[in-house]
Structures are given as C-alpha cells and as structure tokens.
C-alpha cells in the first residue's frame, strides 16, 4: 500500500491531538503553572571528571527568595537511579563522572534568585584525568570510573568457526565503522512540576515514557511506598527513547518535599544538551568472507560502544546490537564480540533503533563492499544470503515465521529499478553526481527474552456511556492516542467516537510497561484481543437484561449493542451505562510481550521482527562535497497498519532522523565537554533538507496472530547505510564514519584524483582548446 492508498483508507483520520499541536496550543506538562509555585534548578559539574573536595551551600541559602538548597545529604532514600542498574547519583557525593552530574538543587521564588543561588554554591573540585575514548578506558592503566571498572557490559555470540569460514572464503572484506553521538532533540526539553498534596503524597507532572517506571524509581529515592506518588506523564513533546530514564524528576520531588510547595523545573536547551542521554557512539569492526558465488561464509564483528558515565540501558543496547550484527542474513560461521564501556563522555542510553542503527550501518556497508569485491549486484548478494520464512532468528532462536524479508527485498528491487529509470536524465551541472543506494534490515520489537516486558490494559463503560480504554503507555508524539480508538473499533466492534482514551496518569491507568521498543501499538492490539471475550460477555449480558433479549441474539456494534442478524441498535452504550448503575462493566488484564519459546536463547533475544528496505538517492556537489538526499523511499513490513496517518508519520519522521544520523548530527565532545552545546551548532535536518519520500506499507497476506508490530523505530534503521551506498555509487568513496563529513569526503575524492580539473568541461580545462583560439580570432577580426 503506498501513501495514496493509505490515505484512501477509512481509518485515515486526523489524530485527536493534531489540531492543538499543529496550532501550538497543546498544553504540555512543562507549560503548567501553579499559583505560589517555586522555580527549581540544579547545579551541574564544571568538570567531566573530578573529585569533590567540598560543597558549601551556606551563601546560597542566605540569598533572599531561596527556599531550599539540597545536596546528597538531603536524599532520604537511595541516592542513585537507573532503570536496570542504579549507579547514577541523584547528587554526587565525592566523585564527578560527566558534565551533567548534579551537585545541588535549589528552589526559589524567582528565576533571578535561583540563578543567584546556583552561582553562589561553592564547590572545590580536584580535576581527574578525563577518560574520553572507550579504547582508552579499556586499558589496564586507565582510571577506573566505577568500582567494577570501565567495562559496563560484555556480550558475545558465536556460531560455527569463523577461522574455517574465512579459510574457505574467496573474498574477504574488512572495515571499521564509526557512528555519532546523536541527540534525541525532542522539541520539549526536560521538566515538569511537583505538587505536595495535603494528604502527604506527591503528584509529579513530568513527561516520561514510563509513568510506573518513574514512580518506582522515585519511591526508591524518597524511601517511600510507590503508592504515595502519583505520576502524570502525558502529553510529551517528543522523546524517541530519551525520556525513559529519569532526568529532573528526583529534584522536583525532593525540592517539593523540602519546601512543601509546588516546584517547577524546565531545562534550557543548553542544559538539555549537557545532561541528556544520547545515542551510543559505536566503533564497529567487521570482517566478512564470502564464496565466489556471493554466499557469506564467515562474519566476525567487534563492537565497542561508548556508554558514557552511567549504565542506564547501555547493556540492553549492546545486546541488541550484538543480536542484529548478522541482520536478515543466514551465515554459518559467526563471531560477535560486544563491549559497552564507561567514559566521561556524557551518558548514552535508549534511542530509537536501540543499537540497531549503528550495527546495520556497518553490516549493510559490508554487503556493499562484498558485492563490489565480487562484482555482483548488491541486491543479489543480499538475496543469496537472505533468510527464508521459517529460518531462526539471528541468535539461533525460534522467531515468528514471516515473509517480511522477501517482501522488503522485492520492494527494493522494484523501487530501485524505478529510480534508476528516472536517473537516465543527465545531471544539470558538470559538478554534480547522482547516486543510488539500497539497504535492508530486520528489527526486533519488544524488550526480548527474560526482560520484564509486562503489559496490560483496562476497558470499562463510563457513566456517560463511553468505552474508556486505559493503558499505562504514554503519548510521546508517536500517536498511540490515535491508534487506540482505531484498534478498539476493529477489535471491540464499537465506533471510534464511542471511545475515550486514558493515558499517562498512574492514578487512572493500569500497568502496561514502557512506551519503548516499538511495542505500544502491538500491545494494545494484544490486550484488546484478550479483553474482547470477557468484555463482550459482560456487555451482552447487560444488554440482554436491559432489552429483555437473548444474549445469543445480540452483538457489539458502533454506538451500542445491536441485533445479531438485523443489525438494529438494541441499546446504546449510554442506555447500558444508565441501566448498569454502579455496576458498570469493566475488564482488566495483565499480559506479557510475546517471546521466543527457546528459553535457552540469550537474554534479550527477540521473537517478533519488523523489516524495512530503503532506496536512497543522493546528489553530491563535487566542488564542495555537499551531499543532498534527493529521494528516500522505504518499504516496511510490520504486520498490519493500524493508524495509517501515524504509520506514514513514523516512517517519514524516522527517515528524516536517519538522514540526520547519516549526514549531520553529532554531539561532538572534546575531553568530556560538549563542543556542540546548542542547536546552532548541533544541526538536525530542516524542512529544506527533506527529500521526496515514498513509502510502501507491505501488508501481510495472512494475519499471523501476532498483530501489528509497531513502527516507532524501523523507519530510522536502514536509512544511513542506503545513503552511504548512494554516495559510493555517486563518487566511488566508501563511507566508514557518520555523520558524513564534507571535509573528509572532499579529501577522499582528491586522493582518488577526483578534483576540479577532472570534472571541468573540457573547453575550460584544456589549454589548447580550439575554443580559445576561435574566440580570439573572432574578436580580433
């Protein structure tokens, strides 16, 4: 289904929050204002690595208008946080590990008092040597950033014997790939408000991908039972994985408790850059051997991820990268060694694609190099190694059988031919070259084997006759708020208008797990499927009583319960609500994301995968090495399409984010300090950079019982390698480091003899052209 076909679906409807967002009228949690609220802020480290000799807050406390100045001594519970491993200090006690580390927090009547107080806090540091590179961190002689050392996590996978595989290979290609420290660049920077309630509880309004997750973490920090904390967490002005971990929530809660007043914090963009998570920069070495016919015989991989100062989800990101190091290819001899390493370079964590984008850039680069070395079409090399429907997953685990791989490859073949036929038109200028590149990927959804991937939801009839669907997922811009009513209409046979969605408030929603790993839409589908029988039974039983009919004669329908055969409305949902009184029908279930039945498989191994094929077109300016993406076309297989407008948005938005990763985005650091400290130097694509984008949503011929897979990440994953391949196609330079730097590209072109003189039209570049003589002759005559 292409975009036009998606647009023609009856489910192509504007999202419920669309108008408010488009007009800038949406009230986000960081827009909240409370009479009498205090302004909060934190003091972050002056150094990327230091010992703290002394912190003196006495002068800050005396500044008029200052209500509280807190340090580690004021944390009643655990002075640490982290989704899996609690190693990140709320307030540093004696050691600084990155420039975002917090030493103190202040609440004041005004921003002026706050800023004065933060400036008045005196910290005596003892700077320590900065560990700026993972390879440096792994040396025995390196300073240890944590008691356990600098190696946060190691993950290996092997199959067969790579030595044997390489010995049998006719061609071996080897390269080192480097990927950038990409920033999520959500429009809404971190912040929120915390209100101390009269009953001694706290209500925290702060965007997060997982309200219950934040609640558990805050309860640990406060030393409270979780139930004393209410988290209101949606809507969110973008997240992309960057708001799953805590950010300013601990300071909001601690300051509100200390002052007994509402406290608001909203980080500036500069502070967000300094403190926020980033995508793991990875250095990936790959050696791949193949037989003359293109069959890959051996694949050896070493991944070193810069996870920065603290753990957050670093181990899981590495596991994902290791799992996806062979992608959709079936290879007999494989060895993958992965290392996630602490440095003083910010903190890397969860980010759309979750380690898949980095390793796919490397893997697809290897496929192109192999094709080049063998003289075989890059698409054909991929096909010769591609997985079949029922093949195992990359870690040898059983996965849900799928035709996704074949379908996206067929898309790539079709689209590439179409694009190539358009490219026969010659370039407008002598100084431009065009290129076309392809890439494919498979991407696991959900958290994987042995991860706490619980989900669930609740449906109930409200007093006003609405069908209320409550989930613990968050609306972080991805559009789950639009997908839920559409799924309810499909699976509960109601109308979209019958549905009310409740999200983002721990006092009102059940636990559904985090809005992460492309799982929310799929989990809504699974939950509603399981809820359906009970819900139907309760509703029909109620309707039978109200209408004095047999249950077997009735069915659920738009607006209410209908006659099963004639279809006439028997009782509206409002009628049923009125008749039910206080005994309103309600069904709640708890469930788990589907996992592979192979319990022996590695932690995190996935069961459900989505697939994407990308065709990229670029135009390279030979004089400046500027690269413009002129076309970006994606074929996506991700189960069915729930919310077509959201689907298109995710793939196109993901595509643009993938372009940023490929061509311009990198939070540059120098010795642990950010060089790109704001959006004037950290560039993301603008509307002017967005190319022509075509999309094909490939719908499975048969629904396989696992429903929609979710498309939150898949649109970002294979974009960079397709662009890199297109650049190679245009000018013959292999790309090994992202983002592509123009200076590196121009220097590489020069090394290959690709200079101005080679491209200049012959008249102008050759001394003895007849043109010059004729001109002179004609002018003198």
């Amino acid at each position, binding site marked *: 289904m292409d975009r036009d076909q998606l647009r023609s679906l009856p489910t192509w409807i504007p999202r419920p929050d669309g108008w408010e967002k488009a007009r800038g009228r949406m009230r986000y949690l960081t827009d909240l204002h409370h009479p009498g609220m205090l302004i909060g802020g934190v003091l972050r480290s002056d150094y990327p690595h230091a010992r703290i000799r002394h912190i003196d807050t006495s002068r800050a406390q005396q500044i008029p208008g200052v209500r509280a100045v807190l340090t580690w001594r004021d944390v009643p519970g655990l002075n640490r946080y982290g989704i899996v491993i609690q190693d990140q200090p709320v307030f540093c006690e004696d050691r600084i590990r990155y420039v975002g580390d917090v030493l103190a927090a202040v609440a004041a009547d005004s921003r002026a008092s706050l800023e004065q107080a933060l400036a008045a806090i005196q910290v005596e540091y003892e700077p320590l040597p900065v560990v700026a590179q993972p390879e440096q961190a792994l040396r025995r002689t390196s300073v240890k950033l944590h008691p356990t050392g600098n190696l946060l996590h190691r993950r290996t996978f092997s199959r067969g014997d790579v030595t044997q595989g390489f010995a049998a290979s006719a061609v071996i290609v080897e390269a080192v790939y480097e990927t950038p420290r990409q920033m999520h660049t959500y429009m809404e920077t971190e912040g929120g408000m915390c209100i101390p309630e009269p009953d001694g509880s706290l209500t925290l309004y702060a965007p997060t991908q997982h309200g219950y997750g934040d609640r558990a973490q805050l309860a640990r920090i406060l030393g409270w039972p979780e139930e004393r904390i209410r988290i209101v967490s949606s809507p969110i002005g973008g997240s992309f994985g960057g708001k799953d971990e805590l950010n300013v929530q601990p300071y909001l809660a601690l300051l509100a408790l200390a002052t007994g007043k509402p406290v608001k914090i909203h980080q500036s963009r500069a502070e967000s850059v300094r403190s926020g998570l980033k995508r793991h920069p990875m250095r990936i070495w790959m050696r791949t051997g193949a037989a003359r016919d293109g069959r890959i015989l051996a694949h050896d991989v070493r991944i070193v991820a810069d996870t920065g100062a603290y753990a957050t989800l670093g181990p899981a990101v590495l596991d994902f990268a290791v799992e996806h190091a062979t992608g959709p290819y079936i290879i007999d001899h494989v060895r993958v060694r992965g290392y996630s390493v602490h440095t003083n370079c910010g903190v890397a964590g969860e980010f759309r694609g979750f380690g898949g984008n980095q390793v796919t850039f490397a893997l697809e680069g290897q496929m192109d190099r192999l094709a080049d070395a063998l003289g075989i079409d890059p698409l054909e090399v991929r096909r010769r190694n591609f997985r079949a429907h029922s093949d195992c997953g990359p870690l040898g685990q059983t996965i849900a059988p799928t035709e996704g791989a074949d379908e996206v490859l067929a898309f790539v073949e079709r689209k590439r031919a179409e694009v190539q036929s358009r490219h026969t038109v010659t370039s407008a200028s002598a*100084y431009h070259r065009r290129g076309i590149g392809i890439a494919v990927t498979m991407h696991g959804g959900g958290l994987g084997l042995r991860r706490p991937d619980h989900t669930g939801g609740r449906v109930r009839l409200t007093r006003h006759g609405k069908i209320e669907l409550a989930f613990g997922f968050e609306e972080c811009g991805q559009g789950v708020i639009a997908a839920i009513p559409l799924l309810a209409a499909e699976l509960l046979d109601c109308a979209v208008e019958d549905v009310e969605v409740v999200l983002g408030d721990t006092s009102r929603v059940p636990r559904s797990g985090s809005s992460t790993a492309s799982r929310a839409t799929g989990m809504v589908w699974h939950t509603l499927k399981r809820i359906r029988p009970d819900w139907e039974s309760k509703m029909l039983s109620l309707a039978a009583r109200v209408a004095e009919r047999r249950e077997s004669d009735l069915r659920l329908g738009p607006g209410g319960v209908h006659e099963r055969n004639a279809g006439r409305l028997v009782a509206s949902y409002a009628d049923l609500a009125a008749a039910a009184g206080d005994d309103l029908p309600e069904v709640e279930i708890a469930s788990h994301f589907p996992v592979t039945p192979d319990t022996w498989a590695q932690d995190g191994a996935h069961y459900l995968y989505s697939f994407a094929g990308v065709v990229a077109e670029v135009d390279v300016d030979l*004089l*400046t*090495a*500027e690269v*413009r993406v002129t076309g970006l076309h994606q074929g996506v297989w991700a189960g069915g399409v729930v919310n077509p407008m959201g689907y298109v948005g995710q793939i196109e938005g993901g595509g643009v984010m993938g372009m940023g990763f490929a*061509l*311009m985005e990198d939070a*540059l650091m*120098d010795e642990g300090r950010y*060089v*790109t400290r704001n959006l*004037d*130097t950290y*560039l993301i*694509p*603008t509307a*002017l*950079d967005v190319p022509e984008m075509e999309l094909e949503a490939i719908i499975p011929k048969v629904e396989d019982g696992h429903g929609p897979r979710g498309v939150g990440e898949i649109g970002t994953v294979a974009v960079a390698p397709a662009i890199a391949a297109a650049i190679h196609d245009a000018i013959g330079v292999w790309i090994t480091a992202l983002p592509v*730097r*123009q*200076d590196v590209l*121009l*220097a590489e072109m*020069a090394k290959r003899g690709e200079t*101005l*003189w080679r491209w*200049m*039209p012959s*008249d*102008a*570049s*050759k*001394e003895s*052209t007849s*043109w*010059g003589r004729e*001109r*002179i002759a004609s*002018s*003198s005559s």
Partner: protein
Amino acid sequence: MPSEWICVDDIANEDRAPVEADDALQVGLRVTLAEAIRSSAVRRRWPHLHEVCRFVGAPALREQATLIGNLAAQGDLVPYLLVSQASLLTWNEGEMEEKSVSEWLNSRDTAADVLITRLNIPKESERVRYFVRKVGRRAGFQPALVTIAASLEVDDACTVGALRVAVGGGAHWPHRLPKVEALARGERLRPSLLRELHHVIQSEMWTYDDAFATAEYRRVVVANLVTAFVASALEEG
C-alpha cells in the same frame, strides 16, 4: 552572537523597505531581510542580493533581522557587499560619514560605538557576472562553513576587466582577495590562469579549522567554487 542589541523598531522616518535611487539600492536600518526579499526591485535588479538574503537565517528570523544588522555582525551578506562595492553611512556622536564597506571593515569602527544608518548597494550590472554561495552542513538556517561572493567582468576578447572575490561567513572576518583579483586583471581567460587562480585563492584566503571542517577544506572549496565560476565564463562565452 553580539553582546549588545539595538532596537530599531521605534526610529521614525526610516523606510522599512529598500529604496531604489540613482542606480543604487538604499537600505535603511529598519529594512529586514524579508522586506528585501519581497522587494520587486531587488528581485529584478539585485538578483544576487536577493539570493544572499534568502540564505541568511530562516524565514521567521528574516522577518526580524535587518541587512544592516547582518553587516554589523559580519554575517553572510558581507562578501556580497564587498564584491558589489557597497558603501555605508555611519553615525558617530552626531557626525555622519560615508565610507565603503571595505573601509569600514578595515577601520576601528566595527569595534567602536559607531552606528550604521544606511547602506548603498550599486545596481548589479548586466555586463558583470556574479556568484554567491553559502556552504554549510545542511540546506538552510545554519552557520556557514564559508560564504563566498565573486564578480567577473570579461570583454569580448575574453580578457578579464575585473575579478572581485570575497570570503566570509562563520567565524571568518570578511575579506577580499586582492592578490587573486590582481592576478586576473587584464589577463586573457585561459586554463593556466584558472590553475593559478585555484592555487592563489588557497594561499591568500584567511580561514580556520574548527570542529566541523578543516581550514584545508574551506580553502579548496573556495578555490573550487571561484575557479568554476570563472571557468563558466569560458564555457559560456
């Protein structure tokens, strides 16, 4: 980013749009980039100024930012102003003074409390070829890696009357390349001249390394673009 800003909104008797007078465009201190872009005179008779204004900032910013503000901040407009031999009127403690943009850049006025009140930009001549380009890391709304402007007058015998080249943008102090210009003056356009120009541009221009591009890159890019521009006169005849 300048440390001090001057609000010009409430200055009376100042035109908001550029005014065409005596073969020059008069740009007052309230004229925004957006107004210049909207001006049909600019579009028709200063097409390269029009192009330059469009690559400064972003649409919302251009509604607020003025041409003179861009000049004062040594922005992307300056190479074009240097090449087009624009002049400006300054106000210094009650005294008005007219000088060329080039003189102004080389004077101490840029650092002193001297206000620029007017900019005069000569009309683009049909006999002169112009070239303007901002090279950056994305398609728009960005700091330049380098901004270039050049103009070339060639007679029918393919002899260069005048070549003007100026470099600016990013952290460059905008400057002309007099050696390059002198090298071409009076010379017949020929491939060996192109090679010399390419070489001298790189040795003469002042530039810098930063986190985003090497100085070498900036030199080669300016040399490539200017040489290709000059060569286009050969190609097109």
